[in-house]
């Protein structure tokens, strides 16, 4: 990245070398300030709403119900609202149950989607797959079909026939299916960066295709796997409509359904307490991202975005 403008500035500076003797003062670099000005504005646009909720979670209850942004009084001690939402049984009960459901479903979805897309991506790129074109065509077509909306009636009737309504774990079936096409395309893009020779030589050494995948190829594409994990984590952790539709029983639902329906305040939950609950709810995803972002960025660069 650092080599991007270096040659250009050198070219310009040789042109100006003579002139610089007379005008040693550096020209005001408009491009630099405009560029960073716009980018910082965008970053503020992204950060300020989250910062506002964060601030709200520390306001006193009176100030939390007011319009002004900066409160007259912060709650004392500062963690009061967090303590409240994390210990009051009236809130903790349902939240804890729904949170556990979310963790449970999300983990199963992520594991299933990763295994599925790694195996399928590998087969589509490095194994001889009869009917490959048909498979890819169907997968591409599915990306342009409004599956989430059109299929939901069908998903309900299938889950009902299988007796899976109100079985929380069963959400992982449609969740995995919804992102399976995109996950396979991500893994396919990453597997295409692995040289064929490597796989052929492993084959000559007598390794089975599964050994080759697990022992040689998988370590190379691990950044791409991180991308698949994050994509599926975010999708499953935040899915609302299916969880709302397939789970009638409040105790079987996931956290997003609870929080989505609690938007206007649940059981007289006051704004600052809602805000504290909100921050608690987004922390798991943000921490996951903070830990994984290095591999995630690398994975994206390595070809995950090619699909």
């Amino acid at each position, binding site marked *: 990245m650092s080599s991007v403008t270096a040659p250009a500035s050198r070219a310009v500076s040789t042109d100006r070398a003579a002139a610089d003797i007379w005008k040693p003062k550096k020209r005001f670099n408009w491009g630099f300030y405009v560029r960073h000005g716009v980018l910082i504005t965008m970053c503020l646009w992204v950060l300020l709403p989250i910062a506002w909720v964060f601030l709200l979670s520390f306001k006193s209850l009176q100030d939390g119900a007011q319009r002004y942004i900066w409160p007259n009084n912060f709650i004392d001690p500062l963690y009061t609202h967090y303590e409240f939402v994390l210990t009051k049984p009236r809130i903790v009960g349902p939240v804890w149950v729904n949170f556990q459901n979310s963790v449970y479903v999300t983990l199963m979805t992520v594991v299933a989607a990763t295994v599925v897309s790694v195996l399928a991506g590998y087969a589509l790129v490095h194994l*001889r797959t009869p009917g490959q074109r048909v498979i890819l065509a169907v997968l591409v077509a599915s990306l342009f079909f409004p599956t989430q909306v059109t299929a939901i*009636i*069908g998903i309900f009737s299938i889950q009902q026939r299988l007796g899976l309504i109100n079985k929380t774990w069963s959400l992982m079936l449609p969740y*995995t299916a919804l992102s399976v096409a995109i996950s396979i395309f991500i893994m396919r893009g990453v597997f295409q960066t692995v040289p064929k020779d490597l796989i052929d030589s492993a084959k000559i050494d007598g390794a089975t295709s599964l050994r080759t995948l697990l022992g040689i190829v998988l370590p190379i594409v691990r950044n791409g796997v991180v991308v698949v994990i994050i994509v599926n984590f975010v999708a499953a952790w935040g899915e609302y409509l299916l969880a709302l539709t397939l789970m009638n029983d409040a105790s079987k639902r996931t956290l997003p359904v609870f929080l989505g329906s609690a938007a206007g305040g649940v059981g007289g939950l006051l704004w600052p307490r809602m805000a504290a609950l909100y921050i608690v709810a987004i922390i798991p995803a943000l921490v996951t991202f903070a830990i994984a972002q290095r591999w995630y960025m690398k994975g994206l660069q390595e070809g995950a*975005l*090619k699909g």
Partner: protein
Amino acid sequence: MAEAVASSSTSVESKPIKGSRSPAVQTLLAFVKTYPYLLPAIFFFVGWQILPIYQALHISFTDDKFLDNQAPNWIGLQNYRDLMSDSLFWTGLRRALTFTVIFVPGMIFIPMVAAILIDRVTHAKVATVYRIILLIPAMIPAPLIFVLWLWMYNNYIGPINYLLVDVFSIYDLQTQPQWLNNPNLIYFSIAFMEWWWGLGYHTMFFLAGLATIPRDLFDAARVDGAGEWRMFWGITIWRLLPIILVLTVIRFGSAMAVITEYIIMGGYDRTKNTYTWTVYMYDTAFGGGMQFRGYAAAIGWMGALFMLMVVAVMFYLFRSRD
């Protein structure tokens, strides 16, 4: 996509597997060896995507009412005939289309600008910080995004109207913008939220596209005296065009099918502009009343067919003319 498909289907294929087996046997062998890898994908994809879509098609030809506990009757195309004269469906389609027209250009343009600017940041660490910050909203679960912006747009405690009314005095309490209640504003309000949400993710696509442009092109252009503006219109935009077109088609698809946003931010009010064909379908199938699944499935399929037609037209218009 088509060329990528064609190019990747070779290599192993070209080598005869063992000795001189007939091509049919070889195909069979490859089938037996490869399909175990594809089986899990097929299980999920067929079971919870293909089958439900087919199931919805099947239901759409019946008069299935979920709550009447009677076996549905096959009524052929009756639901579709009724839909033709159902003004609520066409209004819903028009509403979704209006939102899409407002949403898609911004969702392409803003991230493209961000990507071009980040691409020019020479300091690698600073560029990474920008990327990470812009990606933060992409990590927040969808319903929490909507809840956050419900607060932002709120009339009583929302910071946006606080700034407009109390700080800058552009409006007063009576005239303050009703972001989610004014039918002319609501599409923009939701689109603005979606841009916020998708900014980082889409920027990554454009950055990946920009990374493939050879740097010498810009250097040569600079030597020829081209300014930033000329270079953008002469080089960058053409190199990014494939990404722009793909994102346009994909975002058209997701914008037409938006549903959770409308349900959380607008509810099930038929007169509201958030009551699109998707909400109409969901409300008919799972809302109050008898839950007319048959009719709802027909709504879903008609909407899907309409979208596929538009996508087909887009593919035709955007086809590679090289």
